[in-house]
């Protein structure tokens, strides 16, 4: 498949009319956005907030963050299965509002406990937390939402996701007819020419509501590992709906993952990007973990992979799924190299990994997630005056482990965090 991604960078956004994109400035018409959101009676109200990098802003109760994509005049849409029919994407032309996200900020209407309870992930737009926080290096539109006539948290979650995607599509569509700043071409369909065939194994969270991912518009908790063309991810085939703290992968990372970008940059020269294997983690028992791990190894073998680059989302017992997958790949004769985030406690003197296999000999570190940060007081808060799970005043100085920052693990990968021995 041949895909061209046209980048329209956003340097600044403001509220105003008419809505427009002009040379890096995005004008957002709040009435149009509100109408798009409130078209769904499951949402009662929507307020718009903007934040730019470096501002003294702290955001909580943020769910997903989406970089807007739009496919002008195409028979398929970006974010297939949500904005359009679930037909294969990853070809043609896609417009991208680079460096901009749409973020839903909301409480859920019904109580929840255990893994379904919302766990805070703070977005920190400036100060020492910004380096570890998702969204801190881009311009963000926060849709601060109030639940309406939703039957359940799952029902409200569906409404909120679709609303944000409608808004993202509307904003990206403002660029239609304009010349992009840059165009990237992604095409992995040719012969490998003897170059080493590498697959990217992308283990995502899909345990159920509040901790899940969507592929072509449907959740994937029951999915065995499957194969995608890398271009499908660039067009939004995979949408994140994991709301846990720093360990979530927001949709803007699924559509521009550092693994995909690293591989695509070298495709056709040093290597051949043979495909993406998407698998879910957090399987309930060893039988299912082993079954999934071996599926991944089999798919990699069918793709004639010479090597596998492996990453995973979230934390806790999903480390075990991941390590079993690495082990299965190695034992199938496919060398693997993986990105792992580390624990280590607040001082870094605890063991870095919860689980490992002896075969996991090539690991890149994305840093220790439970070191602590001292964050200063902020001028503006979005999403509530008190933090969701401990109730401290949100404007005050905070002492947090890194993993309580929004999308910290994915951000640390992107930005080059690494834990080193002292």
């Amino acid at each position, binding site marked *: 498949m041949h895909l061209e991604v046209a980048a329209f960078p956003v340097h600044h956004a403001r509220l105003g009319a008419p809505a427009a994109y002009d040379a890096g400035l995005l004008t957002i018409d709040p009435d149009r956005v509100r109408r798009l959101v409130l078209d769904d009676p499951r949402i009662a109200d929507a307020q718009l907030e903007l934040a730019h990098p470096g501002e003294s802003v702290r955001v909580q109760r943020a769910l997903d963050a989406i970089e807007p994509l739009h496919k002008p005049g195409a028979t398929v849409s970006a974010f297939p299965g949500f904005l359009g029919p679930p037909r294969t994407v990853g070809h043609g032309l896609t417009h991208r509002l680079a460096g901009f996200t749409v973020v839903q900020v909301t409480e859920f209407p019904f109580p929840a406990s*255990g893994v379904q309870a919302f766990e805070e992930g703070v977005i920190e737009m400036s100060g020492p937390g910004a380096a570890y926080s998702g969204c801190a290096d881009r311009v963000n539109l926060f849709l601060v939402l109030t639940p309406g006539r939703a039957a359940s948290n799952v029902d409200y979650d569906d409404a909120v996701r679709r609303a944000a995607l409608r808004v993202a599509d509307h904003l990206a569509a403002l660029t239609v007819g304009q010349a992009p700043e840059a165009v990237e071409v992604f095409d992995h369909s040719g012969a490998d020419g003897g170059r080493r065939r590498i697959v990217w194994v992308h283990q995502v969270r899909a345990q159920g509501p509040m901790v899940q991912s969507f592929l072509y518009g449907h959740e994937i908790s029951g999915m065995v590992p499957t194969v995608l063309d890398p271009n499908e991810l660039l067009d939004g085939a995979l949408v994140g709906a994991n709301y846990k703290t720093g360990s979530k992968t927001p949709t803007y990372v699924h559509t521009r993952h550092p693994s995909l970008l690293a591989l695509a940059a070298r495709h056709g020269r040093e290597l051949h990007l043979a495909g993406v294997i998407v698998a879910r983690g957090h399987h309930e028992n060893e039988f299912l973990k082993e079954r999934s791990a071996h599926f991944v190894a089999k798919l990699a073998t069918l793709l004639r992979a010479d*090597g596998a680059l492996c990453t995973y989302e979230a934390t806790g017992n999903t480390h075990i799924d991941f390590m079993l997958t690495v082990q299965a790949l190695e034992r199938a004769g496919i060398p693997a190299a993986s990105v792992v985030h580390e*624990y*280590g406690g607040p001082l870094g003197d605890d063991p870095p990994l919860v689980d490992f296999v002896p075969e996991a000999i090539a690991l890149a570190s994305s840093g220790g997630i439970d070191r602590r940060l001292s964050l200063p007081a902020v001028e503006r808060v979005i999403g509530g005056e008190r933090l969701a799970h401990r109730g401290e005043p949100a404007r005050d100085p905070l002492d947090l482990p890194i993993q309580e920052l929004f999308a910290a693990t994915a951000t640390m990968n992107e930005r080059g965090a690494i834990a*080193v021995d002292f």
Partner: protein
Amino acid sequence: MRVVHYLNQFFAGVGGEERADTPPTSRPGAVGPGLALQRLLGEDGEIVGTVLCGDGLVGDRPDAVVPDIVVLIEALAPDVVIAGPAFNAGRYGLGCARVCAAVSARLGIPALAAMAPDNAAVELHRREIVIVPTTATAIGMPDALAAMARLARRLGRGEPLGPAAVEGYVPRGRRMNAWAPASASARALALLEARLRGEPFTTEVPLPRYDRVAPPPPVADPARMRLALVTECGLVPAGNPDRLEWVRASKWLRYGLGGVDDLARGDYEVAHGGYDAAFGVEDPDRLLPVDAVRELARRGEIGEVLDAYYVTCGNHGVLGQMATHAREIAADLRRQHVDSVLLVAT
């Protein structure tokens, strides 16, 4: 910068194994390998004195001699203390490490030792003191002295040391965050490509080694045991009265079971963020098998069951802290005359 050098009897030129009982002694200026070390330090530091002690004394009776060694060192008023290099000599390595640890702890003076990385003293002391890795034998003396001089300058000036791999010391057991020029994914890809080309590569995350614990002897007769129940599942009385955290728990709790035969729905809730709590809420025995344990006790298959249970939350538990919790629970179990445990883990 005033430097004191610590040596054993051999490198100080006193004698070999037959003089391993040489008591702590102070000599002015540099001695033995200290002479080359002084040349390497140049104008940046002066070895004002050398303190030596026999390996037999400092290795076998450290409590007796290390305080005396510290007194001799203190009298020389150093800015930094250097010990060794001990290479793979076991007692000398221990001596260097103990002297450095004592100097750091009691005098607050920076100290560094040098020895081979597999010297037994390294694993025992690398967290407390800075250790420069050397070759196994004295064939690596020139490189060892050069590394010691380099690090001594930095420590003597009070400069904080950077990462172990950069500065050239044995990792002291702490991993701190830094920023690399490439994403972790790009670095993983570089590792993969090196592997595929058959080139050497270095993993960024060394795998842990789990120690073994000798299994305690079995219970002689379960019909006479006194069993306690412990759960990591975060099961707490409804209302979570003591606010057990459901991630990275900072405490453990003990709750009485009130002699009940069965844990009832509604009496308990789950403080654990890592799994779906619905099943445990519906029947708490699924997380703490009280009903089964009581039944077996009634049938005489279990002697006694402690009428209380212990709980913490195993979600992202910091391992060092969980170990502390377990030790404290063990102390409580001893007070309750328990002799065996059934642990439900997550």
